[in-house]
């Protein structure tokens, strides 16, 4: 992607702030021209002094000052405009990216670390700020300055002007020599490496207890150690490859005097030495000022690489296709039918669900059981259309889920995950998310039904306590009870429930079980069960193994059948009486 393409993409995010950026660029160019005026006035001051006019020279001094201050003031105005536009562009990028992300299939989130996506969106947007706020106005100034300088070149001495121009051209060439070749993609590689290092550092810090236990050092954390070394080496390698170019560049932008001195002396020998002296002083002072602009241009090459990496990151997020909205309103019934459904997680080879067909009949409780990794939880996620099936179809009362309006589908479905997450909101608002219009009283009743009274009682601010705030801690079972309250409040006819497996203590477990028992009363339920006793009285049991349905039926029928389920059942009973102690 070229810079112009990057900027094109960016302007798609800027919206109406584009105009402000343009305004800032015009101001910046204007300020740059004004910035040349003081030199013109100094030229005037010196020539009047040489002609013997003293008071006049002082006036030129003041004008030079006013021009300088006007230059700064306009430059500040320019930077403020570009900054405001840049900040708002970055904001738009964040908003648009997040709007997009909310509609993505959930497969996207399991395959990616949330930290990495956050970095792409948040840091990526920030990385565009430098370009839009600082570097574009600098580039605008750097384009206008030589034009103005060439004009001045004809106003005063063409020869000496040419000398200054020549040094600037040489400096630019030195600068270009550093940017091509294998240095071209350096910044992108460097950023990627930093991202990798961040992910590895997180793993490392998480692993500190294990490192302690097994007496490991950072050197045994090979990938992390290697990335640190590689990052340092790559940066050094890059820096050193610029040694010749950079020192040549710095020398050349300060080299105008080498040409100006002989030129002035030769010109003075042929013409009026006094006039030559005035021009010589002007160009001697003017040359370093031109150098400053080129210098700024130099730093903008880094910004170009940055913006490149940023735009590419955001585009990576934006280019992922979101789930398509069907738009149909769901019909009345809520029988859920899986027909020959297959599904593979993105990036995996093995099908998580392989040609599965079954019907979740209205008003019945259907339990999914089977070894871990057998595809039970995937079925639950597909039923909620968190992913789209690869083959086959899932229909709700005869209509394909993909043809339905997603919002309306969620309206009639209550989902309780095994690893529920709560929002960083008050407990009350967390529950109210189930039905936004519900009154405080209804929220309280739902919490009671979900057996949450003891949790609320111990919280400092009761239902108004913000989840995750200082001094509050919830066990996994407690979080799930609050999620159950949400489901009670929602009062949806279809319930998808993924049973929890780990509990902090028995009291918690007991309350949760009571709440679940109450929730499933009179509803159509799809339940992922991890303990077999749970499903003894389920209406239908579906046994899954390796992504396929291997058995189906009632509890009694399955036990007497002598298949996988009956094996699991006897193992379960055996496990229930296991003890941690060497055999006696």
């Amino acid at each position: 992607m070229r810079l112009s393409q990057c900027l094109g993409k960016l302007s798609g995010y800027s919206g109406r702030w584009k105009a402000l950026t343009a305004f800032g660029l015009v101001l910046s160019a204007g300020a740059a021209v004004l910035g040349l005026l003081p030199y013109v006035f100094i030229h005037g001051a010196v020539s009047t002094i040489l002609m013997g006019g003293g008071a006049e020279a002082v006036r030129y001094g003041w004008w030079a000052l006013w021009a300088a201050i006007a230059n700064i003031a306009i430059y500040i105005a320019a930077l403020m405009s570009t900054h405001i536009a840049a900040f708002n562009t970055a904001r738009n990028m964040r908003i648009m990216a997040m709007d997009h992300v909310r509609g993505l299939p959930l497969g996207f989130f399991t395959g990616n670390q949330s930290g990495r996506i956050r970095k792409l969106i948040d840091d990526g947007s920030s990385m565009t700020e430098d370009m839009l706020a600082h570097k574009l106005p600098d580039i605008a100034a750097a384009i206008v300055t030589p034009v103005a300088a060439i004009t001045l070149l004809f106003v005063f001495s063409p020869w000496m002007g040419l000398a200054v121009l020549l040094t600037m051209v040489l400096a630019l060439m030195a600068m270009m020599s550093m940017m091509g070749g294998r240095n071209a993609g350096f910044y992108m590689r460097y950023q990627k490496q930093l991202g990798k290092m961040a992910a590895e550092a997180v793993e490392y810090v998480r692993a500190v207890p294990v490192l302690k236990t097994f007496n490991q050092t950072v050197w045994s954390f090979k990938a992390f150690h290697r990335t640190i070394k590689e990052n340092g080496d790559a940066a050094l390698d890059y820096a050193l490859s610029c040694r010749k170019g950079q020192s040549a560049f710095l020398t050349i932008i300060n080299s105008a005097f080498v040409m100006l001195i002989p030129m002035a002396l030769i010109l003075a020998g042929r013409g009026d030495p006094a006039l030559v002296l005035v021009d010589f002083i002007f160009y001697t002072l003017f040359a370093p000022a031109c150098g400053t602009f080129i210098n700024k241009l130099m730093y903008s090459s880094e910004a170009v690489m940055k913006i490149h990496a940023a735009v590419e990151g955001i585009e990576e997020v934006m280019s992922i296709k979101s789930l398509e909205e069907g738009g149909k309103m769901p019909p009345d019934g809520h029988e859920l039918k899986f027909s020959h459904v297959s599904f593979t997680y993105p990036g995996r080879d093995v099908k998580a669900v392989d040609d599965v067909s079954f019907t979740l009949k209205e008003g019945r409780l259907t339990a999914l059981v089977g070894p871990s990794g057998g595809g039970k939880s995937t079925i639950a996620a597909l039923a909620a259309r968190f992913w789209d099936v690869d083959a086959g179809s899932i229909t709700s009362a005869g209509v394909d889920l993909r043809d339905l309006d997603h919002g309306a589908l969620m309206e009639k479905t209550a989902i309780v995950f095994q690893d529920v997450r709560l929002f960083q909101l008050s407990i009350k608002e967390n529950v109210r998310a189930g039905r936004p219009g519900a009154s405080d009283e209804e929220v309280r009743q739902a919490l009671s039904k979900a057996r949450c009274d003891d949790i609320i009682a111990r919280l400092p601010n009761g239902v108004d306590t913000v989840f995750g705030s200082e001094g509050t801690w919830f066990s996994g079972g407690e979080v799930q009870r609050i999620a159950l309250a949400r489901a009670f409040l929602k009062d949806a006819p279809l319930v998808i429930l993924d049973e929890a497996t780990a509990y902090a203590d028995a009291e918690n477990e007991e309350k949760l079980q009571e709440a679940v028992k109450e929730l499933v009363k009179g509803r159509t339920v799809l339940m992922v069960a991890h303990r077999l006793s749970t499903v003894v009285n389920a209406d239908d049991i579906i046994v899954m193994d390796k992504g396929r349905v291997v058995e189906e039926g009632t509890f009694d029928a399955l036990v007497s059948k002598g298949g996988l389920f009956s094996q699991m059942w006897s193992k379960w009973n055996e496990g229930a009486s296991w003890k941690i102690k060497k055999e006696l």
Partner: protein
Amino acid sequence: MTKWIERTYALSHKGATGLEKAVVLTILCNLSLMLPVSVSLLAVRELLNMIDGEAASVLPLTGIAIIVLALIWVLHYMQYPTLYINTYEESSDRRIRMAEHLRKLPLSFFSHRNLSDVTQAIVGDCAELDQMFSHYIPQTLATAVSTLVIAVMMACIDWRMALAALWVVPIAVLFPVIGKRLQDREGTANIKAKLATANHIQQTLETIREIRACNMEDKDASAFRLVTANQVRHEIRNELVSGIFVSAGFIVLKLGIASTVITGTTLLLDGRLSLLYFIGFMAAAVMVYNPIDNLLQNISATFSAKLRIKRVKAVIDSPVQEGSKCFTPQGHDITFDHVSFSYESGKSVLKDLSFTAKEGEVTALVGPSGGGKTTACRLAERFWDVDEGRILVDGVDISTVDPEVLLTHYSSVFQDVTLFNDTIMENIRLGRKGASDEDVIRAARAAQCDDFIKTLPDGYDTVLSENGASLSGGERQRISIARALLKEAPIILLDEATASLDVESESEVQKAISALTKDKTVLVIAHRLRTVINADHILVLANGRIEEEGPGRSLMEAGGRFAQMAALQSGLQSWTVRE
């Protein structure tokens, strides 16, 4: 001097001497850039002479100019690597030093700060520091010195003109310093607003399922718009504040050119200053402001360098746990002797806890969550140090033993297993450095891992990604047991090692654990009481104290908390979702 640099900038000795070298060369570079002004002045003198009718000599001055240019190039060429070589070597070293230091810190260090904060110090702050050490810091230090040198030289020539040209410098530099407090405040508020946005993004990504399930997309989107609008507001304010002080500095610098012209003209007209010196001072004034211009531009970055160095130092200067390297216990009884402990002052987790876990026995810790079971287990490993009392292994207080030496005697299996981004073979070999492949495979077999490892694409050479995300909970658990088996340590700690497993995995894992615990000192935490009912010794921990203790059978008969818990659980075990 070197020591001072080491301390102030958190550098190694090598880094500090490198920085000194960089500063010296930068000073020379700064001074060398004043030389063209001097040569140009010689040319001006020549031109003035020509006005008076003398003949010009072009060659000598041209020669001098070329020599000066060569000198500038040589100095910059020499300076360049001193900025970078040192910086990036130091950068890798600093990161490794921080990582090494981190793993030696007591876990209490991590409980006070979050994960992203610590990793940010290693990755982000260090990257920023690279920029500091290659640019801002040598430049700032060198500019201070070179400006002073030039000022003295100018004052020697004509103190009035020197004053007229240089009075602005201290004032210009003072502006940002004055504004620092206001800038700090706005800067902090700005960072906070930025973090709020990052946090919102993270939360949305983590709760995306819930957002979808509750149809909260629009609500989340409008909340995000508010958060980002607030961020923009703070960014603009922050930019304004820092912009104002820096721009004030720029404007004051420009005043200097005017005062030089005005003072110079006045003196010149009075005949107290020669035209040559007048021109010289004007050229020198323009040149001397250049590095200060740069300094003003970078001053806020230089301020934030301090902040970042502080964050790095917060890690590097945290005290590590120390102790004797010499620890060779004969027996391995673990004794808690009146131990009290709290994570935060005032909220004690363990209160005057005393018990002994005997070698060759299984000691089980049970009780309600928050009762202090896991804390006791972690204290036994010296992951934290106790507040009161002592923990003894074979009669030696473990707080006097170096943690690395102490932990060679322990094997632990935790509920949450950490796997490394390496092959399965290496992940298990972690248990004992230098163990042969055969030893590893034997341990894996004993831990019931062999079967599932063989089904993986590359068997033992399968590389695990992202903390072994592709493995099930039971499989991960068994790998960590294999590790513990390989280590063959005399003390075994098991914290809820089977809690998150399903039935099939659980019975496999239980077999593995039975193999692991033979004839060792075993301290086990379990929520499911049936798994520990036959332990030699059961301690019921509640509210940081021992409520009951004894063998399981007598506790059942006693009818206390243990018996109640057991009764409750056996009921739960057979619950069904519909009656």
